[in-house]
């Protein structure tokens, strides 16, 4: 979170370094006080008893408390209060020309929707750099929390409520995100990726997603795969744009072949992993909600080829 690639993360990193400097000084000074107090007291030779020790040398008790406990802390807290207000004021403010992205926390993956272009995907969020983005975060099940440490702080995904995270990425790149609110058995495998593209690349990506390119099977095996996919249970839960598969329980798979991972960054998106995932999801992400799909080896290979071809 300290190597920020967006306004919010950078501001917060700045706050951190300021606090870190102050904290180091405070810790060293106060710890020195503790050590000196212990050592000093031990050096005193016997002879004087409790009563005289009470009136011993050094500043008055109240002086310690006034300076250490009241005056210095008030100054430090005053600085922090100003920093808090200043930083909070500029962050997460609505801007002109925002790209709206609707993110819905699922168990245990993320549904991504671009309302202006009516494009739906999962677990990978493409955004353009240098353009303000308004991420509308919600959930239709339990509470999740949306966190991309290199871009911004957290925003919870809460059922019955839409929260906004407004940010602007400064550098193109791939940033890992996590679900940060405990959401059940596979909370650990609910990661996602934010891909900040240059505006040109982003437009190219969006144009392709908006159209039907990449959705048509280009080989016999893919053809067979599409047939199996729409015939078998797959279509009950998943959508592939332009086919009869319109399920909404699981992630939209229309651009599956272009994704980097399967099951929210659990394993890399390779044909072998996908084949295993279809046959026995439990072995990859125990407790996830996708049932195993019993297919013949040939059918499974066809489905794998079909899905991997959706780019």
């Amino acid at each position: 979170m300290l190597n920020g690639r967006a306004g919010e993360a950078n501001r917060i990193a700045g706050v951190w370094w300021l606090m870190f400097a102050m904290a180091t000084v405070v810790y060293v000074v106060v710890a020195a006080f503790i050590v000196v107090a212990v050592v000093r007291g031990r050096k005193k030779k016997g002879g004087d008893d409790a009563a005289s020790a009470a009136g011993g040398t050094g500043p008055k008790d109240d002086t310690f408390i006034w300076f250490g406990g009241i005056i210095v802390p008030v100054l430090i807290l005053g600085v922090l209060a100003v920093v808090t207000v200043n930083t909070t004021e500029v962050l997460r403010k609505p801007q002109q020309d925002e790209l709206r992205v609707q993110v819905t926390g699922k168990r245990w993956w993320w549904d991504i929707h671009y309302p202006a272009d009516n494009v739906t995907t999962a677990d990978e969020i493409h955004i353009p750099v240098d353009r303000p983005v308004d991420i509308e975060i919600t959930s239709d099940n339990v509470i999740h929390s949306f966190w991309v440490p290199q871009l911004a702080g957290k925003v919870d995904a809460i059922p019955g409520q839409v929260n906004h995270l407004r940010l602007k990425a400064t550098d193109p790149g791939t940033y890992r995100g996590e679900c940060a609110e405990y959401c059940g058995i596979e909370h650990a495998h609910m990661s996602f990726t934010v891909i900040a593209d240059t505006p040109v690349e982003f437009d190219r990506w969006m144009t392709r997603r908006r159209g039907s390119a990449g959705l048509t099977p280009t080989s016999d095996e893919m053809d067979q795969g599409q047939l199996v996919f729409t015939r078998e249970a797959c279509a009950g839960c998943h959508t592939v744009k332009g086919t009869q598969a319109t399920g909404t329980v699981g992630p939209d798979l229309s651009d599956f072949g272009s994704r980097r991972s399967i099951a929210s960054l659990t394993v890399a998106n390779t044909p072998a992993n996908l084949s295993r995932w279809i046959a026995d999801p439990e072995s990859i992400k125990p407790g996830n909600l996708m049932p195993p799909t019993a297919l013949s080896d040939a059918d499974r290979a066809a489905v794998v080829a079909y899905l991997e071809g959706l780019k």
Partner: protein
Amino acid sequence: MAIVEAPPVGESEVGELWEDAPGLPGFFSTVDHKRIGMRYIYTCFFFFFVAGLMALGMRAQLATPNAKVLGPELYNELFTMHGVTMIFLFNTPVLAGFGNYLIPLQIGTRDMAFPRLNAFSYWVFLLGGIFMYSSFLFGMPDGGWFGYVPLVSKTFSPGLNIDFWGLGIVFTGLSTTVGSINFIVTIFKLRAPGMSLNRMPIFVWSMLVFSFMAIFAVPAVTLATGLNELDRLFGTAFFVPALGGSVLLYQHLFWFWGHPEVYILFVPATGMISQIVPTFSGRPLAGYLWVAGSLVTVGFISFGVWVHHMFATGMPAVAMAFFSGVSLIITLPSGVQFFAWIATMWKGRVRLTTPMLFAIGFLLIFLLGGITGVMVAVLPFDWQVTDSYFVVAHFHYVLNGAVVFPIFGAIYYWMPKMTGRMLSEKLGKLSFWVMFVGFNITFFPMHILGFLGMPRRIYTYDNGLGWGGLNAMVSIGSAIFGLGTAITLFNWVWSRRKGEVVGDDPWDADSLEWSTTSPPPHYNFAAIPLVASRHPLWDQRPLPFAESGDEPDTSGLGIQGAVDRETPVTSGIDTRPEGNLEIPHETYLPFVLALGIAVLFVGLLIQAIVVGVAGVALAMMATLWWAWRTEEDLPPPEIEPEAPVGSAAGEVTTTTAGPGEVTE
């Protein structure tokens, strides 16, 4: 030395009057605050070590990336039960246990104000703990110790395990509430003559704040989990968004208790430190009024910071800024206490005994935990670190370092009083150093893991995220820390038999518990001490003890009170004697009542009306029997005391030596 005036009966005979029946009957019927206090401490430490083993299990799983030591279900159960156990079955009740044992001794009385209620709150705690842990047989709760809805709603967690958690919290909350009521009345009404509020030991102050905070905060968590149980068991709609309910309401209720709870745990821990530091600095606590005032202030402010646990829930910025500000301000009273301790040591002569080492370790750890606490109060920074390992590090520095370390210090400090034997100092110091080193190896790297983006409560993590090395270090540290605690466990077991036998006041401490024998007799004080100083054992040598007066109001002060099994009641502010409180004899009533409530909860759990009704019936019977006997336990009818001020009964009567000194 000798007793100036011979007591009417021999001490051993007085002891017999107070003795519990031997064996099991006495075990289930005792109302002696010391036995109950020890029981609390033993039970809590049992849970402490269980929770510690759970933590070690989690650390084994997290030591390497993609480990398969525990599955996700078990991991989630363990971190849930670890949190539940540490908060509800160790930290809160163990402090109540120390309070139980020490408060009557520190304020100079013979028992708690409601000895039977005291036994009741222990039984409720024990049965509540057993209730929660019996989920072990059916699958343990796995919704997190905080159990956010809707994750723990019937829809998303249909199993019985969540009900064990929800009902268990309501159940143990009852114990905390009843215990706190008892502490408050005991502290206000049973203090020895002369112990005005500004002469109370700081630990008593801290338990008073603990109790007031508990009675105002616990209802919130009872309602949070209780309303969720209504949703789960009876189909209500408090937290169902589709029916107009609100999931955020749950979070508000939970944290309205949750944040004060942090201070409920922390305040008595600092109270212990404020006893230990002056004793081993050989001088009175610097800024007594500052410290007492800080405790009270913390108690108030802590009710205004709960929203800082909810900064990521999308609330209006103005509201969050307010709570951010209050969260900054709450550090001030802690700063005051901190420098009061430093000033105490600065001008004292520090003896580095084991309790003092734990106190100094506490200071160094709490300093860091306090600083990171200030950081997470800063709203934008909290957005980044909340629910990350940074926060895990922060609250373990506070709840483990700044609460468990004082508790260990307190064990070493008060064990001689509780058992009459010292713990081995050698083992104690070893235990401290191993714990201190292990603690920092465990929890310091977690700050960095948070910065590296590691979220809380994940059961595994992928290779190549750069988290592996630090996690391995954390796991090694946790094993070292566990070893350190085990050394103290061994030390206790060993010293129980072989420890050096000590006198009344082995540490040269100042408060009243050290004026009686170690361990104290059943009746604590044959005659009640007369207090004229904040540090009676330092300033009043020899400590004067009261004689029984002829008036009913003062008859309980002297040895006659011990003979009659009563303890004096004094006016709340200026501690004038105003009557006597009969100490009830042993009784099974508290156990039966707690059992009835346990049966009711089991009935709710398994949705069996018959069982629930049976529980209510049992509890009602016990309550009626209890209420019926109230007057029998009160002193005989008294005449309105209209004695002229300063009458004969008001003469200062003292014996120069307490019964504890007879043997010298």
